[in-house]
């Protein structure tokens, strides 16, 4: 039996009917076509499915879609404004803070939710913020440099 789900994703309101056991990540990917958000572990431990839900970084494989009723969600597809990249995206490009790119959407979600909450963090706090996101390619330090550059105001947000 499908149930009604109303939420807003990347500023777009949706009204859907989903099976009660469907995970949020599967609704985002399969129903809305937002395949930027990945799946990597089936055990809520790798972080590639991280999205921003009501301002918090959340692993979208670890909650049911119906639990997102009424929520405001941002996925990686919602970071850029038109053709203007978000400061974090620009910094990730300049600092080479991605390689294979599979963890990048989740990493950006964790980074954005964290910096929105704490715009002037210490390096240790930055490390803690992305500790739930596994990256097998970069060794994390380039990601920390990119986030630090954003914290330092090196990248301006598009109006």
């Amino acid at each position, binding site marked *: 039996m499908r149930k009604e789900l109303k939420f807003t994703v990347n500023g777009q309101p949706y009204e859907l009917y989903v099976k009660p056991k469907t995970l949020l990540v599967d609704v985002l*990917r399969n129903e809305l076509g*937002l*395949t*930027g*958000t*990945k*799946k*990597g*572990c*089936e*055990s*809520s*431990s*790798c972080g*590639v499915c991280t999205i921003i839900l009501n301002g918090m970084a959340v692993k979208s494989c670890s909650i049911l879609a119906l639990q997102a009723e009424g929520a405001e969600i941002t*996925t*990686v*597809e919602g*970071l*850029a404004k038109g053709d203007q*990249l978000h400061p974090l*995206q620009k910094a*990730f*490009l*300049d*600092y*080479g803070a*991605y*390689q*294979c*790119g*599979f*963890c*990048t*959407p989740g990493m*950006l979600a964790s980074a954005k939710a964290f910096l929105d909450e704490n715009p002037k963090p210490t390096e240790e706090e930055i*490390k*803690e913020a*992305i*500790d*739930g*996101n*596994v*990256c*097998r*390619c*970069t*060794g*994390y*330090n*380039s*990601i*920390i440099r990119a986030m630090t550059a954003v914290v330092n105001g090196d990248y301006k947000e598009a109006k």
Partner: protein
Amino acid sequence: MSDKYAVIGKSQIKVDGPAKVTGSAKYTFDMILPNMLYGKILRSPHPHAKILKMDTSRAEKMIGVKAVLTGKDTLGRKNGVWRRFPELCDEEILCREKVRYIGDPVAAIAAVDEETAEAALDLIDVEYEPLPAVFDPLEGMKEGAPQLHEHAERNINVTRRIEWGDVSEAFEKCDVILEDQFHTSSQAHLCMETHGAVADFGFDGKLTVWTSTQSNYYIQVLLSTMLGLREGDVRVVKPPSGGGFGSKFELDSAQFCAALLSQKLRRPVKIILTREEEFTATKRKTPMSYYVKVGAKKDGTFLAKEVRVVTEGGAYTAMGATALTLTGFYSCMPYKWPNYRYDGYRVYTNTAPTSALRGFGAPQAYFAGESMIDVLAAEIKMDPLEIRRKNAITPNYEVPGQAYIQSCGLKECYEAIEKHIQKRGKLPPNRGIGIGNYAFMSGGIFNWFNTPYAFSAATVKINIDGKVDLFTGACDTGQGSDTTLAMICAEELGVHLDDIRVHAEDTDLGPADLGSWGSRETLMNGNAVKMAAADAKRQLLEFAYAKMKPNVVYDLDIKDHKIYMVDRPERSISYFDIVQDTIRAKEGQTVIGRGHYTPHRKGMVSPAWGFGVQAVEVEVDPETGKVKLIEIVTAHDCGQVINPVGVIGQVEGATMLAAGGAFCEEQPMDNGKILNPSIGDYKVLRSLDMPKTVGIEVDTYEPEGPFGAKEAGEGLTSPTGGAMANAVYNAVGVRIKDQPITPEKVLNALKEKEKGRKKK
């Protein structure tokens, strides 16, 4: 040095970057085709068993199931990358009579969705007769051990001897001889995108496979062999790939089963391995029992080294046979050993097959080797850095009968690391710095795959608007080869990076090419690309000569869209004009340049070598045995740097993977069953575990490489294990010879040390 070049040597945003940071890159994992089915694979629960009976009828009747295939539905061929040796092609993929490890595939299902396919797995009835199994390679080598394959008595899969000089005689001349036994552990590649494929077999008899691979060409050849097709009827396309690290250049069960199901059903079939399958049923790093004996004069001159290695092969040959060979070679590096002997044995066991993992046998060799050098240095009371420097390879050195080394920046690396250590000064208690150094290949020379094609090839096409299409078979799995090759192409042609469109990773478009493994891309693909670009440039310059009419003593080149006289750069004409003239003069044909590269007369292993020295600083908690990484400083020689931001990424990424293998990652087993097949249980380094990392590039020029460049990235996994073991010793005085260096091992060693002290 960078001013010499317009494009290379300056950090460039990678060509795949914008798609990756916006979530618009479409991975195999994201692909959906119309009318597509989803596949799942049934795997053996036994480490070793005969298949007595298989009944698929219940599964076939399930609503939504479209096909259930077993080994009987295959041609019965065996897969393998060592194609020069038929008996080493030993993996059926869908087993017909016998299973050899927990995870060996026995059946594949295609259904309307993943849930149905998954549920139908339970309805396949397989009757097994369990057989005695062997898990330890040393046990497997014994007479009377359970035998996995008919062709391999005592389970010996491959042996390898490398030898020069007279080792026995040389040991007699040594002032000091030390020997010891080491053990290296298994490690999972842990690609964030698991292995997967979408296969579409059309009614025209042609198969297209989209897959996360490191070599489209390998998959094309292996799939066509296994399915009885001509190579040209199999097209392999690699979408953006979520990592490889050595795990994705052999034909895997997802690719084979998806293709087989699609061949039968003539519908697209997608199979994505689960994370648990990724841990238990794909290849993994080769564990090694490693005996080493070294002999030297009391002034520190190395005289002789002997190494005997037994590797845990797992159930099949895979690329593990290559790792066995490479470990044998790396074990002599990066020193001038006048006498050397290596005996390697790869032994089949009833465990998941072992193969290549970033470093390809090098991290194992250097863990044991670099640990021993420190022990030796202490024995003759010599500084560990000094003894290395004294014996290190220098430029233009021949490793007897094996390899020719041209560029070698080890000397500069030692100087940089020496400065770093001096700067650190005296460390607080329980802190230590250890060093390790390495040499690593820039692409392998061996051709056990038996390709008749050049090792690398490229095509460059210049269009009327000056845009350049670059076709290559290199596979970018995140390391940045698309960008590196585009930069080499742009530099050679004298155009800008955004003039280049890279068309890689599609067997229908690109020339056959061995793909991305063994640190091939920068040097081997780079040489092919540079040659293709030079070929296209020569065609443009022919017309430019006619137009500019220079004195014959002047030659022309292209830079920044200008064709100019090299000695009188103020005389130039537009690249765009000459492109138009050339195409018109060629009766409207685009300008096409071709390039290829296969190493010749460059020894047995690699045409060029990357080098480096690393200092690892750790802090050991003597109460818990926990090792904390403080800082890892690496001085390395990758020749001319092509993309600096890419090289930094390689240094840091390699360090993270190597440090993980050195101190926390392992795959404990119980009777062949991997006990930690999830990311939660498998300890991988996270951001809080990462120490500060510093990369120092030393400036060399490699004559064999494009613009003097060579490998950066894979070799950097080599020094960390040994350097870390040395650091732990320098911190608390215990030597761990068994990777990974877990708190438990450190604590036990500290207790033993304490006991020994009390006895005295």
